[in-house]
């Protein structure tokens, strides 16, 4: 029994954040008289927050390695401007314009990565400079707002997966299938890694803990699925993109040599250097990833707005950084997970939407979000201090 308790308390912080999300959702569900979880609101929650989710995936990697990126909002505006220019002035077909945006994202990432990794200027300074430079360039390119893009491009944010499986009652078949297959896949993967541990003589976490954990997460996932399946569109294409990115980057951070090096650099830079890790290259690659993710976020933002404008992406860096910290990423580096940052981003998103539905003015929304961020990090530090005493 002691081991179950120990194992639970160890994971508590990790799952506490999911609990916090549930609490926030329940509070607003009550305050909005059940309007928060209306199927169409859930769908638009994802559409509205796709940019934070995408940017937080990169930001969590940057912060784990002990850096920060203040430029992501400006990058989104700049890359979005180039994207709009290609479609509006050059009349490029939208897939070509998107490819160009990704290439520009890579170039911007290489620019930041070069200064951080090889010239060894602190990322705070490099990306502060980047924030000014790319905001300026965005104004040069998109000072005059460009709008009226091809339908295919706009569909990236407004479209949904086709309903080729038909409907069961008012539930969309495709959405239900994705949800069920996804949950089954997660359960299978967990069981398999458990079996591997047992095979190598490593004591896995107690079965009861694993079952409770899986049951809670599966339950939440299936609940979300059922809501989306009843929304007017079904599964948004943006959700598929974001979900894909989450899976890819969780894998990159947890299972690849590169990912392990990111944690090693952030956890103890000196030890990483003395272990023969090429820290410069790892840092460079981290910023390449951040650049690509900024480009993807730019595509989502421009598609959703239907326009490319120089003021796009204002304060996005702060949203992404806040999402990471709320999601349990350590301020000092070395600790963090993509899933945590995603939950952090959703908490911010639910706060935004809930407060808006309640008619709270945006000025007060900012106050609330600021306090939530402070509370989350304070909770993190205090609980860490307590576990050190114990």
């Amino acid at each position, binding site marked *: 029994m002691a081991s179950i308790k120990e194992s639970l308390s160890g994971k508590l912080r990790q799952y506490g954040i999911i609990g916090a999300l549930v609490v926030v959702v329940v509070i607003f569900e009550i305050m909005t008289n059940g309007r928060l979880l209306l199927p169409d609101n859930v769908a638009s929650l994802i559409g509205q927050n796709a940019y934070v989710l995408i940017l937080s995936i990169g930001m969590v990697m940057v912060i784990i390695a002990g850096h920060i990126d203040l430029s992501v909002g400006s990058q989104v505006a700049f890359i979005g401007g180039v994207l709009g220019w290609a479609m509006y002035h050059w009349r490029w077909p939208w897939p070509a314009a998107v490819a160009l945006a990704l290439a520009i994202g890579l170039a911007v990432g290489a620019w930041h990565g070069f200064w951080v990794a090889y010239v060894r200027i602190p990322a705070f300074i490099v990306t502060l400079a980047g924030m000014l430079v790319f905001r300026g360039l965005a104004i040069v390119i998109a000072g005059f707002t460009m709008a009226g893009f091809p339908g295919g491009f706009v569909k990236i944010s407004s479209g949904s997966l086709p309903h080729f499986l038909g409907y069961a009652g008012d539930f969309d078949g495709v959405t239900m299938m994705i949800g069920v297959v996804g949950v089954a896949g997660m359960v299978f993967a967990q069981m398999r*890694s458990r079996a*591997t*541990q047992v*095979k*190598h*003589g*490593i*004591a896995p976490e107690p079965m009861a803990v694993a079952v409770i954990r899986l049951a809670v997460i599966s339950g939440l996932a299936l609940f979300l699925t059922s809501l989306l399946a009843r929304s007017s569109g079904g599964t948004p294409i943006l959700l598929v993109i974001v979900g894909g990115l989450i899976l890819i980057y969780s894998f990159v951070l947890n*299972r*690849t*040599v*590169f990912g*392990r*090096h990111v*944690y*090693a650099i952030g*956890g*103890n830079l*000196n*030890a*990483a*250097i*003395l*272990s*023969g*890790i*090429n820290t410069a290259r790892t840092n460079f690659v981290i910023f390449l990833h951040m650049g690509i993710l900024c480009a993807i976020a730019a595509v989502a933002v421009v598609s959703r707005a239907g326009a490319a404008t120089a003021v796009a992406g204002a304060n996005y860096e702060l949203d992404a950084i806040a999402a990471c910290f709320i999601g349990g990423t*350590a301020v000092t580096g*070395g*600790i963090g997970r993509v899933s945590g940052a995603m939950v952090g981003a959703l908490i911010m998103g639910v706060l935004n939407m809930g407060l808006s539905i309640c008619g709270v003015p945006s000025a007060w929304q900012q106050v609330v979000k600021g306090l939530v961020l402070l509370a989350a990090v304070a909770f993190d530090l205090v609980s860490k201090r307590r576990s050190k005493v114990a």
Partner: protein
Amino acid sequence: MQDTPILSMESISMEFPGVKALSNVTFKVRQGAIHAICGENGAGKSTLMKVLSGVHPHGSYSGDITFQSSPCHFRSLRDSERRGIVIIHQELALIPFLSIAENIFLGNEQARAGVIDWSKVQQRAGGLMRRVGLNEHPMTRIVDIGVGKQQLVEIAKALAKRVELLILDEPTAALNDEDSAHLLGLVQQLRDQGVTCVIISHKLSEIIGIADSITVLRDGEVVETLHAADGPITEERLIKDMVGRELSSRFPDHVSNAGEEAFRLADWTVYHPIDTERKVVDGANLVVRGGEVVGLAGLMGSGRTEMAMSVFGRSYGTKISGQLYLGGKPAETKRVSDAVAQGIAYVSEDRKRYGLNLIQSVRENMTVAALRNLAKGGVIEAAAEAAAAERLRRELTVKTPSVEAPVLKLSGGNQQKVSLAKWVYTDPDVLILDEPTRGIDVGAKFEIYTIINRLAQQGKAVIVISSELPELIGICDRIYTISEGRITGDVARADATQEHLMKLMTIETKDQV
């Protein structure tokens, strides 16, 4: 000799978890004397001074401290400084980009209503600087003067606080001969002005030259206190006091298994990374054969760690010259990854700062240096990694609830084994172990020695850096001594005694030039 002491520390005992740092130490200093403390690393010298200066607050130790005939219950450095006890650490506590004058009055600003009175600062600083013989403008920045002068600034800073008892921790360790001589002269001059001094030093000839009394500590206990007035003090006597410990069966049996030459350094010279004129390693030559355990005996600051790290991917120093041979062939290790690829492993003396990522798991720490062996196309094979970590855990008898536990939760000895496991897993030909048993208990030490033996039996060349002489004599086939960056001896196990090694380790090579 019978006058009342200015300072009297009676029956001081102090314990850290698992270690008795001081046991029943009684230490008395006469008014207006220079009193030296010497002992091996870890003998308790610094701990005793931390007790005195309030770094270890009243209540964390047992025993009584009396200063100028009244009892002391210091809770912090500030408390002891208020009474006129000032300690100057080996690592100087100066702010590099502030001026000499500002540093002298740091924490003791010459101000009226919070506003600095600059003319008073300059005038008083000038006076203090003349007193210590520091010939610089008071507004010169600390970064722009040498270490020797920085040391003088520290003393001026102490004088500004109306020091009664000045404690100097290894004051000449980083100084050249000229600066050392000046500093020692100044200490004598201060004594004549009535300032009592306590000096901690490894340089025996130096302290014999100036000290009125010398107390020798060993394993947290006072061995004896000698007074110059009672007759001349010899280095031999001090060395015997410092090391006089019996070798017992604290070491596993070891059979020599030396084979072909595995590692050789020729004329290896390394300069200090900041003070680029200072040689930290000076023309070192050494050879280690496969299957051989070779010791590198040197005191802290002798250049032993710096030599190892400069070989390991130039992790230390500048202007590195000389030639490294691996397996008899010239080799280059410009980066750590080159060194690892060519079969060199370096286990750091400071496992928390340079060895481990404490917040990661045992498994992740063990595999990080050889992760590529476990990966296909950049993707780590989780099953293979888990199996490797589990095998290392068993082989090195790491006591941990699971390989998934964070290293943070492990005891010092087990952390050290994880640090060792990480490098064993890279399957090196040459292992450099820097203080492999520092701060761990006797049982864990024995296990580490056993692992070292096993690695040597497998034909690996093992270099053990240590300041614990019994340890080196107990486990090594051969021992090199290093002093002030130079190799001063190559002693076979049969000829190695602690007295002999200590003598070679404290040779002041620079004096002979």
